[in-house]
């Protein structure tokens, strides 16, 4: 993966438009333009390179860049899953329309870095999915780890299957190859924390939309969460291609929801730069001298089509790979946009149900 970034010299909105293909959103919510906050964080592009295939080839990616904020507001009050702001900044219902997802990113305070899907809104209040699309709920007002009045919330435009991978139209062409069956088309998998598996989608060239194998419903609007790991299976004989994603660089450590009790969650490093294991200083990370008692990080190995499982030893802090008792992987490099599988051994609640690593760069 290749990434280049720059501070927005002219119009970050232009970048946002390119990324999200949000003409429909603008049509639905013209007030947003007036409310546009000019961001000062770097924006840039990540290029995911997919070489030509000579066999069925599976690749895992994550997308650490996000769309710029369209609102930045301080919290006035909150409940377990709602946040209320002063005034009437939003068009009622405008942040929760099918096909145009919006996320609330908590920018300051105890839960800074958490990015939550907005499921409903009034003119002053947003309701969020406090499960973080998992089987567990973490309340905004969790005791000892609560969002507080005055914390800054950024509302960002989310992505969908079609906005990232195309819808077959002239303005938004398909990035991968469609087909009449998932067994002949390229497939895109979006990790589902509730079912703990990748949901497999393909672009059906008869229906002319994204769907699953077992149902003919139009699924162009499936939401891609910022912390999603994405699995892509290209069939044999595909030409090489480059997937370019444009967006903002994380300026603070993103939080990734995990469910604990050794359950594996597929996500990403969350950073648009190469990261060494030594830089992944996860909070509450359990080191141990055995892979069976340590928290683990899985990285897909395209040579074996399996996960390599890494853990951090307690005695010397080195990163080791399960099954390899010799090599120190502390300086092992995860390329920008890598996907990882994270498993925390212990049961989790509150802040321990999220992992984050310090931002490995300064802005």
């Amino acid at each position, binding site marked *: 993966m290749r990434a280049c970034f720059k501070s927005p010299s002219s119009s970050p909105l232009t970048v946002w438009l390119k990324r999200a293909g949000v003409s429909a959103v603008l049509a639905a919510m013209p007030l947003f333009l007036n409310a546009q906050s000019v961001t000062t964080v770097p924006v840039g592009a990540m290029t995911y390179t997919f070489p030509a295939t000579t066999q069925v080839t599976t690749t895992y990616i994550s997308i650490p860049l996000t769309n710029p904020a369209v609102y930045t507001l301080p919290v006035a009050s909150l409940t377990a899953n709602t946040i209320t702001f002063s005034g009437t900044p939003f068009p009622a219902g405008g942040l929760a329309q099918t096909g145009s997802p919006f996320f609330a990113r908590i920018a300051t305070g105890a839960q800074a870095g958490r990015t939550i899907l907005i499921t409903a809104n009034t003119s002053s209040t947003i309701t969020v999915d406090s499960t973080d699309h998992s089987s567990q709920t973490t309340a905004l007002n969790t005791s000892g780890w609560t969002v507080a009045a005055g914390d800054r919330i950024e509302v960002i435009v989310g992505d969908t299957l079609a906005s990232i991978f195309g819808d077959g139209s002239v303005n938004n062409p398909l990035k991968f190859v469609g087909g009449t069956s998932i067994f002949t088309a390229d497939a895109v998998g979006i990790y589902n924390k509730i079912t703990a598996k990748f949901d497999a989608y393909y672009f059906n060239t008869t229906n002319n939309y994204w769907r699953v194998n077992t149902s003919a419903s139009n699924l162009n609007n499936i939401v891609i969460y910022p912390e999603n790991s994405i699995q892509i299976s290209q069939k*044999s004989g595909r030409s090489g291609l480059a997937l370019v994603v444009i967006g903002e660089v994380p300026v603070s450590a993103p939080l990734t929801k995990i469910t604990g009790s050794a359950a594996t969650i597929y996500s990403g490093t969350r950073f648009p730069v190469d990261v060494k294991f030594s830089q992944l200083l996860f909070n509450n990370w359990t080191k141990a001298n055995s892979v069976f008692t340590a928290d683990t990080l899985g990285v897909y190995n395209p*040579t074996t089509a399996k996960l390599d499982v890494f853990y951090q030893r307690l005695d010397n802090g080195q990163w080791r790979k399960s099954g390899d008792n010799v090599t120190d992987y502390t300086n092992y490099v995860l390329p920008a946009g890598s996907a990882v599988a994270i498993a925390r051994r212990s049961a989790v609640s509150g802040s321990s149900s999220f992992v984050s690593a310090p931002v490995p760069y300064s802005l």
Partner: protein
Amino acid sequence: MRILFYFSLMLSFAISLTAQTTNLWTDGGGGDPSWSNTANWSLNNVPGSSTDVQIAVQPSAGLIGIDTGATIIKSLTFNNTLTGSFSFELALGDTLQINGAITNNSGFNQSFNLPVNAGASATWLGPLTYSNIVNVGTNTITLSGGSAFAGSDLNFDITNVSTYGHFLGSGTATVTGVTINIGGSYAGSSGDTFDFTTGNFSGATLGSLPTLSGGLAWNTSSFLSSGLLSVAAIPEPSAYAALFGTAVIGFGVWRRRRKA
């Protein structure tokens, strides 16, 4: 007495039904080639890890699509009722693990266009083409009837000198263009030798090897020609110094004698 007899008969029939683990692909899915479609199977359920799978009816879609993730079955047989070749394909990152034999009685070459994992030592009877990654693990796979490994990687694991994956057999197997990787938890012991095939790996490339403990190195000189790998101790620097010293002294003695 007669009632008891019928009861016994019914009981034995029930037991035989319970023990039924062979599930036949009957292609009853109306053209849907999905492995997950229960209508494609004689038992109306998706095969599991204890199921002997038989492909009994030619897949009308020209393929069988595995869409059940990391799929594990007990064994796989292509019956002689098949009328042609077809391939196993995947939906999204799916794999197929066979914990027993693969037996192709069809007479037609059949292909695996997805990663295949050997779950146990077994015989793989071709003609079969493996067009994706094959993970042998630490199992012994006896190849016969013709096997073509045409995917990117063929992977063997080593646990120790007596437990490691390898090929046996007398049939024709080709590995042209394949990278052969050796993995596993093995850390090395001087003098250990591993024979990965009764034939050779001509046309393949040797990829990664397990990292050995300090002072040990792999000897790979015979790997492609005969499938052999061995572990040797790397001489310590002091051993090199002693060797050099001996050579210097020898040279000095030789010169002195020559002058004399």
